């Protein structure tokens, strides 16, 4: 697959925003400087990937994982990134766990609903009678508690 040159670049708007947020207010960033940082970022990705891949190969794995990336940062002498990266990883894992639980819950609810719909078809009348009886029972209970 041939990549077009622009595919290896990162979006200018996002890069600019990251730079602006990092620098003090009112600092002007020349177009050349922005473009240079963007290119540098792409090179950083390549360098980090290559480095991480070495760690994966050492571990006889074909898939790059999180620890390979962290080891690469250490190797490249960007130790200052390791703590924030570990925090990001924790946050990401919590998010994923939350999503998984939410979709499992949805599935449970869906299954329950489907089951009860099938039962309703044959027992509509019975349920109505049951509901009326339940309401009466609840009212009785409330009266007892008040006393």
């Amino acid at each position, binding site marked *: 697959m041939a990549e077009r040159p622009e595919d290896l670049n990162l979006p200018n708007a996002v890069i600019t925003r990251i730079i602006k947020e990092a620098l003090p207010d009112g600092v002007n960033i020349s177009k050349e400087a922005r473009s240079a940082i963007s290119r540098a970022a792409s090179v950083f990705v390549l360098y980090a990937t290559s480095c991480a891949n070495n760690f994966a190969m050492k571990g006889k794995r074909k898939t790059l994982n999180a620890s390979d990336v962290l080891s690469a940062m250490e190797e490249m002498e*960007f130790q200052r990134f390791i703590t924030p990266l570990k925090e990001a990883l924790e946050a990401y894992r919590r998010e994923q766990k939350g999503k998984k639980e939410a979709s499992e819950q949805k599935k449970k609810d869906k299954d329950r609903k489907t089951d009860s719909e099938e039962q309703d078809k044959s027992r509509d009348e019975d349920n109505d009678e049951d509901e009326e009886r339940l309401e009466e029972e609840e009212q009785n209970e409330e009266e007892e508690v008040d006393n």
Partner: protein
Amino acid sequence: MADVVVGRDKCGEQRLVSLPLSRIRVIMKSSPEVSSINQEALVLTAKATELFVQYLATYSYRHGSGKEKKALTYSDLSNTAEESETFQFLADILPKKILASKYLKMLKEKREDEEENDNNDESDDEAES
């Protein structure tokens, strides 16, 4: 602490990374010998790249001459690439800029040196025979 890790987008929603994962993935896959990339590795690489952009920008600004003028310029960045060991891997893509006239002068001097060396070689040959 969470603010350091998450950014906020236009809607004010918290997002873990701002850079598009699909693009990061394309760049990573262009590296030879890389077979596959696990999703966590992709997220971490994107996050690391953001940290890198911040670091490169602030480092270059602090050490650069543009500071008095409250500006970040290309030369601040190329100086960083040349002078800092951490950023040396960027030296080839952030070369220092010189005036065209100076470059032409350098080329001329280099050519003159090469001609001189050629002449010396010839005279060496003659001496041997």
